[in-house]
């Protein structure tokens, strides 16, 4: 007996037009969307073309802010710090996330606990992470220095401040990547493993030939999400190091915040924001293209 075809609400059906009820249902969202996204988005663009303070809008100055931006070493330093942070976090976050997912998937009996331990930090507020990190990184009473037997002032050391924040970030957010990889692992059909087992594949061979290729799409997603997320870093560096020491941890968004709220230069800050968005979009596109190019090269 056939399963009946249950029609889904696709465009093929054409019930009577429902403009008015639709408007009523959409109104709250549309109003909020307009006020808190669309208008601010347009305003950012427009502000970047003016010279404005935080509370008043002033003269239209065209692309002057952008011209200044291009020459602004502080901006490029901040951008460099951001990229450095991304470099420090993306690979570890992806790799450790993968390992965790593999372990959770393998040791099914302890799954709830393992998954819980790895993921719990992710649901914590940022300031919990920063408080604990700051405590652990204390030069004299911090537990890290006690284990390593040194007295290094991590967060005050220009070389080590950003890496320290990066390590804290890895602890804090890796759980999410683990989830992505877990979902990817669970979508691999069991038959592939059974067939491979019959072919005599074990351990590493199994991973390299079955698991890893099947996980490629998830890995790509994960990398892209990680890069974008690390570009948006702000809270950790602001709270832990205030952008110091010597601006070595001042990231792009921090610079934007300072420009807007400390120097009350809203116009220039908006230009920074626009540049920031451009960087994010460009990098995302770049990644997607690289992935497509790699896939083409393979087939």
């Amino acid at each position, binding site marked *: 007996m056939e399963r009946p075809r249950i029609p889904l609400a696709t465009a093929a059906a054409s019930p009577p037009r429902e403009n008015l009820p639709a408007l009523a249902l*959409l109104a709250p969202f549309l109003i909020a969307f307009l006020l808190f996204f669309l208008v601010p988005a347009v305003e950012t663009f427009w502000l970047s073309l003016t010279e404005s303070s935080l509370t008043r809008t002033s003269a239209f100055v065209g692309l002057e802010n952008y011209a200044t931006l291009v020459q602004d070493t502080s901006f490029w330093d901040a951008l460099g710090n951001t990229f450095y942070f991304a470099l420090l976090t993306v690979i570890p976050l992806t790799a450790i996330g993968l390992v965790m997912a593999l372990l959770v998937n393998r040791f099914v009996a302890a799954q709830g606990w393992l998954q819980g331990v790895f993921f719990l930090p992710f*649901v914590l507020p940022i*300031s919990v992470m920063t408080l604990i990190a700051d405590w652990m990184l204390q030069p004299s009473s911090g537990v890290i220095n006690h284990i390593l037997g040194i007295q290094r002032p991590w967060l005050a050391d220009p070389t080590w401040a950003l890496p320290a924040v990066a390590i804290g970030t890895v602890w804090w957010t890796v759980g999410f990547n683990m989830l992505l990889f877990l979902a990817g692992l669970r979508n691999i059909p069991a038959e592939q493993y059974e067939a491979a087992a019959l072919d005599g594949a074990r351990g590493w061979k199994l991973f390299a030939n079955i698991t890893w290729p099947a996980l490629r799409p998830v890995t790509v997603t994960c990398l892209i999400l990680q890069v974008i997320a690390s570009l948006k870093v702000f809270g950790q560096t602001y709270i832990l190091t205030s952008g110091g020491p010597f601006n070595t941890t001042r990231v792009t968004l921090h610079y934007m915040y300072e420009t807007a709220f400390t120097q009350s230069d809203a116009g220039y800050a908006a230009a920074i924001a626009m540049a920031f968005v451009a960087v994010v979009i460009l990098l995302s596109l770049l990644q997607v293209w690289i992935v497509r190019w790699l896939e083409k090269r393979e087939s």
Partner: protein
Amino acid sequence: MNGKSNLGWTVIGAASAVLLAALWAAPLLWALSTALRPELETVSADFHWLPQTWTLDAFARTLGAGNLLRWLFNSALVALSVTVVTMAISLMAAYAFSQLRFRGRSLLFGLAMLAFLLPFEALLVPLFRTMNQLGMINSYAGIVLPQVVSPVVIYVFKQFFDGIPADFREAAVMDGAGPLRVLWSVYLPISGNIVWAMAIVTFIAAWNNFLWPFIIVTSNDMMTIPLGLTQTYDAFGVRYAQLMAAALLGALPVALAYVLFQKKVTQGFLAASGLKG
């Protein structure tokens, strides 16, 4: 890894699992251990993993001094409001996008999804100015309102609604239900699980939101937990037991939400990232 592994791999795997789990649990456990000892012990040269003297002193002081309770209240109010409002407007919008035929449907939906492209961080300055003009700086409404715009939640709900067979809606229409009624009496109950998942995830995200409250809140009394915890140095001085106690108390609600609803939280985060759980 599925399938048969030989003993070597199992041992390595188990050892790695234990090691990683220990590493990941360590910071919170250490914070707990710190919070349960007297202040002097935390900075003494004599290092101990476990408290020599067990005491709840730090917790008591934390709840007494500073504004921790006030911050907890603010966070609870804000997170709950954000969750309720986001769920309400997102469900309605998602239902309209999914089930109703109206002019401009794809255009509007595309526009809403455009928000994915533009990060919230880029809107901070104009949002602040708008809030200033509306007189909502440092107010609950000011903290809550920008957070209710969530294309992710709408997207997840719309996808889910699309997958519900149209027969239920048509039967309800024939029974005389209007669109709002169909959403409330038919779609909502059927979507129970996913709505809970997204609600919990929204709650956690709202509780943990640092950036926006950081911009909009100007007085200590209106701070939410993530903000307030950064003020603890001023409140308590450099007293690590109390700082850790404050951190743990601030983390408690969301940690509890996760422990109680682990499956839903997982489901919600995965849905939000576009993958199936």
